[in-house]
């Protein structure tokens, strides 16, 4: 692949961002968490349409046998998603 310096910068920022921010991919099982935002990506509108908007309270119901995908309780319905999709959903753990 041919990275331009801008791409590289973007990628590095993303990596740092992911390392610092907590996402749904790292949430604990059955722990209620509040969505704080969706990372910019081409999946963003899709995730929003599935009801994952800022302020929504969600929790992981169960994980598939190899830990991926996960099943998430979104306000009464069960949405399953891969970890790489869940990692776009930024959360704050609700204490």
């Amino acid at each position: 692949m041919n990275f331009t310096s801008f791409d590289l910068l973007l990628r590095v920022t993303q990596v740092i961002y992911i390392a610092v921010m907590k996402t749904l991919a790292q949430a604990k099982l059955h722990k209620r968490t509040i969505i704080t935002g969706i990372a910019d990506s081409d999946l963003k509108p899709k995730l929003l349409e599935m009801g994952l908007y800022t302020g929504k309270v969600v929790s992981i119901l169960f994980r598939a046998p190899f830990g991926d995908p996960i099943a998430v309780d979104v306000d009464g319905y069960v949405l399953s998603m891969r970890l790489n999709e869940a990692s776009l959903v930024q959360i704050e753990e609700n204490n």
Partner: protein
Amino acid sequence: MKKVGLFGNPNTGKSSLFNRLTGLKQRVGNFPGVTVDKQLGNLKFGNETVQIIDFPGTYSIYPRSKDEQVVYKVISNPKHADYPDLAVVVVDASNLERNLLLFTQIYDLGMPTVLVLNLTDVASKNGFVINIDQLQTHFPNTIIVRSNARVGLGMKELQEAIKSLSDSNNPFHHSDPSELIAMDDLIAQSADTTDRFDRIKQIVADVVTKKENPVSHQFSSKLDRWLVHPILGYVIFFSVLLIIFQTVFSLASYPMDWIDMGFAQLSEWTTAVLPEGLLSRLLTEGIIPGIGGVLIFIPQIGLLFFLIGILEETGYMARVVFIMDKLMRPFGLNGKSVVPLISSAACAIPGVMATRTIQSWNERLTTILVAPLMSCSARIPVYTLLIGLVIPDQQIWGFLNLQGLVLFGLYALGLVTALLVALVIKQFFRKSTERSVFLLELPAYKAPRWANVGLEVFQKVKLFVFDAGKIILAISIILWALASFGPSDDMEKAAASVIKPTTENPVDLTAYEDQVAAAKLQHSYMGILGRAIEPVIKPLGYDWKMGISLLTSFAAREVFVGSLATIYSVHQESDDPKPLIERLRNEKYASGKPVYTLASGVSLLVFYAFAMQCMATLAVVKRETKSWKWPLIQLGYMGVLAYLGAFIAYQLLK
């Protein structure tokens, strides 16, 4: 005729509703440019008829996959042939918030709408009460209908609503698609969705009262403890697969035998009744067996879709996808690819048709392309014959039968090759811009609605018989013509050169007839083609007689056995391959070397494991991908694999 568009999220009971409204009077049409089918049906009130178009279930009018584009394309263009005069939006009452997104998107365009609050029973079980009058104040220009499509509640009200709105002088017909955001403007779409949910949140808070703690989820989550369990989940799933496989493989064989026998008898009967001539032969040897060759697949298609229908209706299919996704992902396949692939081990035709549940086009296409590599039941007669012929019947390590081991190896070869080819397609041939999206709703478990399952079976069978059937019939007539005619009178001369026995002994007469058939086939166009390809197939260890059988078995793989029997004039009374095996063992080249050796036999086995020798599958792939491009690519790559595989096998074992 007025058009009514049916919209809604997946799992809202939209198809139940469509089935309720239209019953068996459904048709399948094409939406231009996408592979998703257009389900059409008519609804009659008195003299007036409206057409109901069932659009694919989506969460938004903005497309997130290729097949979802049809919703946007139709709605954004009032001149579109399928542009509805009225939109019926089916909404899951137990999940009002997410479902209202699609509804408000359509409502805000000013199109006349009916809001169907479906699954109200589930909603009340979950402790939700929806104040309909209050909901009406938020959407004054729509007609709200409560329904329970599973049991048929609210259908009359819905029909009345459709009737009243399809009157031409309805007061609020001023749809304005210019309000729509561009299809690829994801940023504006995200902002719009966020704004809409802000509004919807308030509406939901206003109209929904939650009475008690939800209880219905408990049943689903208890079941999920077992069905997605790290060990039990797979045990259960593989048991389910085994049942499906056994049913499609064994249970279907009875009606298939009846169809087979029925058509053979019909053919015989027409031969006896009709005067001899070209037209009668076309009918008895070309058309009747051709139609039989189409209908023979109905039991397998019907049974598979009956079982898949149950899995889909109950909600278990979504769990299958959930537990298999991680395992299939490295190969560029989807959790949903598992059922089509396993079904293809019985027959690739229903297998390919079953890929429709895969939403991602890339993953669906990959599944379609590799599915025929799974060893289907039509390969079994060929495998049995060749294994009996060249693999010694002996035990290895004291307990394993070598012949059985080779058969198992061929099945494994098919599966491994299918996965490897999928991997190659993923690595080298996919457009990387299209990312694989999983995001799948796991619906609550529920009892299947048998009418839906039955309609699904009916639709699939109808589709196969009328769409793919045409192509299969055409190719079988061509193959028949090639095998029945030769240049000038070569065939007649060859037949005449066979010495007619002087006795009336029936054994001699049968032998004579078999020899005449052999002589004719060898001098037909098919025979000439077989000889013509001999230089090409010689490096694989085949002679021209095998060449003829390779060509004829393009109709269906099992024809290979029958063709060899004809060529070697072995009379086949039953399915018992022993007389043919005996005959083939004695077949020698001019040099005295046997024709069927371990090397040429294994080479043939490998060839049949890989080659795309099934016109019915090609016809179905054309049907499912709506283009000749993919079946031809499939024919090509599987042919190359077969040739190379057989070449290597022969050269190594020679």
